[in-house]
């Protein structure tokens, strides 16, 4: 009996177009939403809430972000939270760098991201240290709450 020769195409190629479309849409979504500036903000710090704190329209010219945890330790230009005495040395370096660059420290903005539970004493001490060094523009950062 003669054998029937049937050819079956074994290559199964799925249509990838829709999957690639969707993947590109996902990438576009994440690219738009990603914010590297926020990534620098320490997430352990619980900011006080405020309805009237205004998100800055544009970043300040010379921002100095100082983050303070609930124990009054400060995160600035270092890997870990440090006491004020340590941070002061770093701030002196920053001030001198600004002066070398022909800038006035008064024009730099010290952004204070302090934990809502930190004692006022620590914030005041840091403020006074900054004032001693010639900084006088401050931005107190708060979590923006929706208006009622």
């Amino acid at each position: 009996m003669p054998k029937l020769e049937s050819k079956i195409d074994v290559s199964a190629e799925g249509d990838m177009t829709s999957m690639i479309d969707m993947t590109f849409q996902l990438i576009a979504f994440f690219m738009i939403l990603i914010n590297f500036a926020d990534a620098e903000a320490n997430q352990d710090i619980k900011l006080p809430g405020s309805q009237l704190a205004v998100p800055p329209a544009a970043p300040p010219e010379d921002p100095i972000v100082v983050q303070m945890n609930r124990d009054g330790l400060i995160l600035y230009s270092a890997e870990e939270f440090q006491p004020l005495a340590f941070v002061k040395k770093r701030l002196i370096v920053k001030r001198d760098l600004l002066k070398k660059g022909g800038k006035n420290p008064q024009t730099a903005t010290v952004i204070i991201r302090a934990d809502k539970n930190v004692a006022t004493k620590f914030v005041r001490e840091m403020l006074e240290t900054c004032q001693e060094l010639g900084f006088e523009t401050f931005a107190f950062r708060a979590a923006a709450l929706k208006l009622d």
Partner: protein
Amino acid sequence: MPKRRDVKAPDKIDINMTPMIDVVFQLMAFFLMTFKVASVEGDFNLKLPKSERSAGAANTQTEMINIVMRAQATGDLAVMQIDAAPPTRWSNANDAILFADLRAKIAAKVNAARGAGQEEPEVQIDADDNLRYEFIIKTVDAVSARVGEDGKVQQLAKKVKFAPR
């Protein structure tokens, strides 16, 4: 004349998509892992020069509104006093009322000064060392702006400072 060759163009050109898909997935993995739903943060911008601490008090032209905030041992607010008004005791229940009242008083003083064409009053916060920072921000929030009846934000005190120690 030579016969024309029958050249058949291929029906389908297969592009190797594998490297592109690899890269795309790598990108997606990167964005997925670095993605954080961060809350929106806002600023209270204050100009606090060191010299102003003494100059402000000496300047008789500028009215000074003194807000005294005493703290409990826990760091919560105990009492708040605005100038010579009787101090108000704070509790969780009257928190919103207390700061709304402060906002209203500051708004009245600022609007009165603006109406009379005088220099706007300065606000000085005299807070206990152990008072939680949250209350300072609530106070700064209350004295610096309010939402008007038209829904627009009205700027109140522009000069806010801490009492010298």
